[in-house]
């Protein structure tokens, strides 16, 4: 197991190097540059040229890449051209919000999706099954921004149950230690702040959960249906095992492998930033910031964020691979 993990981590090096070169060349080949966004309508061809020179964008691309790699190897991702702040600081300011939102969405998706998918499979062709299949189809089809708008209009604007925007009421004086607001509230004993942060997570979490929830319901249903027909389940039942034991030990455990794979992929995807949900709920995660950086062609931010996200994505999938062996002893990671 240890050798497997080390080998996977070593494989990361060529992957990240290749990705960085490809991405760097591609980004710098896009028309225009960050100087246009920086200067806006007030920019003239002369002032834009001056800014390009200052940013070193007039130099050959390999020279620019070399400078980027030199910084990277010392752990410096550079500074945002737009905000003039270190890219790592920008990431650390925003990533906790995205993590909190992802966890919330996955709690909703897993907490509702697995039981619902399981029950749908156990009661195949029942009203519950039909409803869950139809519901998951609708959830996948409704655009996130529209769903978010509706949810917010109903539960925040009309009923006033939840806050409509942000990560925390800006008028609360909360102490931020880790930038995970819920955790910070608990750590500092500021329960109001923690509760307020949780309330701010509910609507964007629910909205963001819609698609993962639908996928998990469908995968769980299909996986459980497959396992239900297996000989070992019939054998277990014939042996007189309790239904609870059959359900937990034989059905769910065997059905979990594809579900975990999907959960890993979904979590990795959500961690790279839920742009639409963050925008609709003015939720300050990395998605919005990356979108803005794409518009502004803020090269250091785009390069830095994508490298970090790629790393996280690979690590999440490594965790998923390792967890196979824990769930199913027949799977041995080598």
């Amino acid at each position, binding site marked *: 197991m240890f050798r497997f993990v080390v080998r996977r981590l070593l494989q990361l090096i060529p992957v990240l190097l290749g990705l960085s070169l490809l991405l760097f060349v591609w980004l710098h080949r896009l*028309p225009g540059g960050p100087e246009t*966004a920086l200067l806006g309508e007030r920019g003239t*061809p002369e002032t834009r040229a*001056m800014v390009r020179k200052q940013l*070193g964008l007039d130099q050959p691309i390999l020279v620019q890449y070399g400078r980027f790699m030199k910084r990277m190897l010392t752990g410096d991702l550079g500074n945002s051209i*737009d905000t003039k702040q270190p890219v790592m600081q920008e990431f650390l300011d925003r990533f906790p919000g995205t993590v909190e939102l992802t966890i919330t969405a996955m709690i909703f998706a897993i907490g509702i999706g697995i039981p619902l998918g399981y029950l749908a499979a156990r009661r195949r062709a029942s009203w519950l099954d039909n409803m869950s299949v139809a519901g998951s189809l609708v959830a996948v089809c409704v655009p996130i921004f529209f769903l978010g708008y509706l949810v917010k209009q109903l539960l925040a604007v009309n009923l006033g149950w939840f806050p409509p*925007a942000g990560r925390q009421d800006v*008028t609360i004086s909360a102490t931020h230690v880790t930038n995970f607001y819920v955790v910070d509230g608990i750590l500092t004993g500021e329960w109001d702040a923690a509760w307020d942060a949780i309330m701010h997570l509910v609507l964007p979490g629910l909205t963001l959960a819609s698609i993962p929830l639908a996928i998990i319901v469908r995968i769980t249903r299909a996986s459980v249906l497959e396992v239900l027909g297996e000989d070992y389940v019939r054998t277990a039942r014939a042996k007189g095992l309790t239904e609870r034991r059959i359900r937990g030990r034989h059905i769910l455990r065997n059905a979990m492998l594809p579900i975990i794979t999907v959960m890993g992929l979904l979590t990795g995807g959500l961690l790279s930033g839920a742009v639409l949900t963050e*925008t609709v709920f003015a939720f300050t995660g990395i998605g919005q910031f990356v979108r803005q950086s794409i518009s502004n062609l803020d090269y250091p931010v785009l390069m830095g964020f994508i490298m970090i996200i790629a790393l996280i994505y690979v690590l999440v999938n490594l965790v998923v691979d390792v967890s196979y062996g824990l769930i199913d002893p027949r799977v041995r990671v080598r």
Partner: protein
Amino acid sequence: MRAPRLRTAAAVCAVAALALAAAGCASKRDQETTSNKPEKLVFGVAGDPKTLDPALASDGESFRVARQVYETLVQPEPGTAKIVPGLATEFKPDSTGLVWTFKLKQGVKFHDGTDFNGESVCFNFNRWYNWKGMLQSQDVSSYWQDIWGGFAKNEDPKLGPSLFKSCTVKDASTVEIAITKVTSKFPAALALPSFSISSPKALQEFKADEVGGTADSLTYPEYAMKHPTGTGPYKFVEWDRPNKVVKLTRNDAYNGTKAKIKDLYFQTISDLDARKQALRAGSIQGYDLVAPQDVKVLKGEGFNVLTRPAFNILYLAINQSGNPALAKLEVRQAIAYALDRKSIVDSKYPEGSTVAINFHPSSLEGYNDAVTKYDYDVNKAKTLLAQAGYANGLTLRFGYPTEVTRPYMPDPKGIFELMKTNLEAAGIKIEPVALKWTPDYLNKMTTGKDHDIHLLGWTGDYGDAYNFIGTFFDRQKDEWGFNNPTLFAKFAEADKEADLQKRYALYKELNKMLLDFLPGVPVAHGPPSLVLAKNVGGVKASPLTDERYYTAEYTG
């Protein structure tokens, strides 16, 4: 076996739903106790400020914060673009127009308790003038370079000579600022937040000029991120960057009317609909950049919608250096006559918008109503095209931006479609060139020769017509592609005229020349709006977006 499990599941769901509802109710109670308090006002804005040091800023959101925290020597009169005394109680030039004397307000203190006086004014001017290294980057000291040109020692030969010559303290309440040439920019541009007066002590203590990093990767100094210190009615408390909010609190030692609402928050909510919903839900008490279509709706719901006097212009630019047809005056006139600008304004702009006659708003001195007006006349357009030798038609590439709206251009594609219909009715075939606003569109339309006509505009920085027409036409530019030495000489003459009345007369003349020469077609002035909660008033909308919130108050 199954029924009990179903019941269990149903019970779990019911408990979860109840918990959720209870949580929701609790949240509502929290909101009732934390918002709608007369001591707090949360205003929703579209973006984060870039910096808290206005000298380094050129974006509207940085300026919005600066206008509450800092003051300038002169400032715009509330609700207009006219310059009135600010930290200077009076200001006047000598007979040459090159030395200006400013009498300063007495008894003013910076937020750190130090005195505002002549020394502090000159400290700020000398700070800007003596900037070195990365502070001379266009990206960092944009407005200094736009208004004042270069520095004491220019490090890039492309930087021009400086307009600033010296600042002399005559006594504690009097300073003299000497400039190297008479220009329309001075003293009007001193009202820009970039020229706010900071506390010298705070500037030194928090190393305001120590820009970090390297030229291609620089970072703002501590002063610019955490310690803005001015003399304004609000003091800076915190910039909570992860939560995207700037917190200010009343300056109880303010030399003037104290802020009526104690705590002021600027919260970034970039999505327009999200800002609207937050206002309706009561979590913010106002927001900026109301969509034109929402103005009536929000007014109908009882919100206080404040419409700013329009201080911008949308024009249709015509590039004379690419397509040879556009170098012919008759063709440019045909384009102008073909456009039904009134219909465009009526259908695409909010209430209060007007068709543009000059290339600047009518509120500025120098406006000329007696110019050629080019009222919609499709037959005249066809005749002019025929006279120019294009009776069989003409094809033009028409650029418009995507993924953007501007107060002067609320619906770029919609405006383009209407213009396209107008121009095609006159016999001009249109090839659309739709490009992303930044970087593609701005780059393409303002450089090179490969563009025919396009939509672009401008929002004024300060109250002088030169800031509009001079910015567009006082020299040869790729955007317009013409070289008109007579026009350029007239601009130079107006810019260096010290006598204001004579200068305004020259502006009038220039407006006439421009509409005769027709480098483009002025289209519309669109007033942007902001909105406040039903029970918030006291804010005066400014054409320069120079709203000061210390006058804001809860009315009920």
